[in-house]
């Protein structure tokens, strides 16, 4: 049986087993490689993608549950010939990217956060990031990036 869903604006169909992780289908069939395999058990957040706007751990998300949903990954945030989003720019300018393993997941989590809460305080940002583990940065500059991106978005509105 096939499952159909939209990835970054394009409809896709897969005949993969219903319990195949969405992560695997995205990387191996759809060809979006931004979600990363960290823990493989849904805790580290490196595999975070948005399903209908909500962050989920794609390594634990059965592709059957993705049917008829809209999935967004980093590849869907801005095209190669387009400027980066405010979140992406801020992660760079605030020095929040070191090894980069956690970065795609963090970008998706922060993108969803600012869509839902355009002016979060730092506590809200930290709470939103509990599902994204970073071994390099100590999170301070990630939080700075979130606050900076919020300012940028607000000033553009």
């Amino acid at each position, binding site marked *: *049986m096939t*499952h159909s869903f939209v990835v970054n604006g394009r409809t896709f169909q897969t005949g993969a*087993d*219903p*319990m195949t*992780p969405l992560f695997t289908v995205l990387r191996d069939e759809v060809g979006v490689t931004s979600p990363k395999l960290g823990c493989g*058990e*849904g*805790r580290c*957040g490196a595999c*975070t993608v948005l*399903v209908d706007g*909500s*962050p*989920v*751990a794609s*390594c*634990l*998300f*059965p592709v*059957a*549950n993705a*049917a008829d949903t809209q999935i967004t990954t980093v590849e869907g945030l801005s095209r190669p010939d387009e400027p980066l989003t405010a979140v992406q720019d801020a992660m760079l300018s605030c020095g929040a990217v070191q090894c980069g393993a956690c970065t795609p997941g963090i970008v998706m*989590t922060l993108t969803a956060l600012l869509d839902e809460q355009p002016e979060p305080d730092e506590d809200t940002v930290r*709470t*939103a990031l*509990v*599902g994204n583990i970073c071994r390099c940065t100590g999170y301070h500059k990630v939080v700075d990036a979130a606050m900076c991106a919020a300012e940028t978005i607000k000033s553009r509105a």
Partner: protein
Amino acid sequence: MNVPTSTAQITTVEDAVVALGEGATLLAGGSWLMRSSSKPSSVVRAALLPELGGVRAERDAVSLGAVLTHAQLAAVAPHAALRALTEAARQSAFPQARNVATLGANIANARFPEGDLVPALLAAGAELELASGDGRSTVPIAEYLLTRHARRRDELIVRVRVPLPAARTSDFVRLTVRKAGEYALASVAVSIDLNDRFVTSARVAIGSVEARQRLSPEAGQALVGSAIGDAAAIADAMAALAETLEPRDAVDGPGWYRASVTPVLLKRVVRRLTSSIA
């Protein structure tokens, strides 16, 4: 080898019950099934069963669909009697988990003593609406938990009904090793009925401390008859709770530690309740 299939055409509870009886597995959020070493041979998607969805206001109660996620529960319109549940849902885990993990699976999973929603539902006196080959039934959650490990294969939780009396207030606290994100080492839910500032009835429930979440009748009783926040009543309740604990050892924390923090969590919940009323 079985080729796993998805029974995507199942959209009624009755058809789901038949499929479960034939060996299918109910797939809710998937966060437990996807971590298990064996995959089911066929699945019924809970998301496709309309009866399992949504929040329905009833007279002095609310009916919660079993497929509601923690995130959706956390966003339910606030009522003091429901606060323990919405707080448990809000504090649990982290966003990626809260966005998929469901109310029904939190209750039904027999290998999940850490489940946060269960103590809140116990304190609230929630009832489960079940469906199986035997038809529909309504069971208090405390009773369900006693046989959670041995339910019928074709049974599923359809909805959860939580009474919302006007004079009731509740809250929930959990303790993790690190600041957030993990399964709780211990959690406490308290639900109290007040007459002015006096406690006329109280339910205290604990989670993750023991092999199974449960109510502590002794701790609840110790709070009754005093003003909310009364220090002596709180101390009595803490002692009564401590006396009955049979804590479990696990990799995230030993039993003696869980037992030592649980009464303190009870004090914290009651103090939170007290200041929310002030």
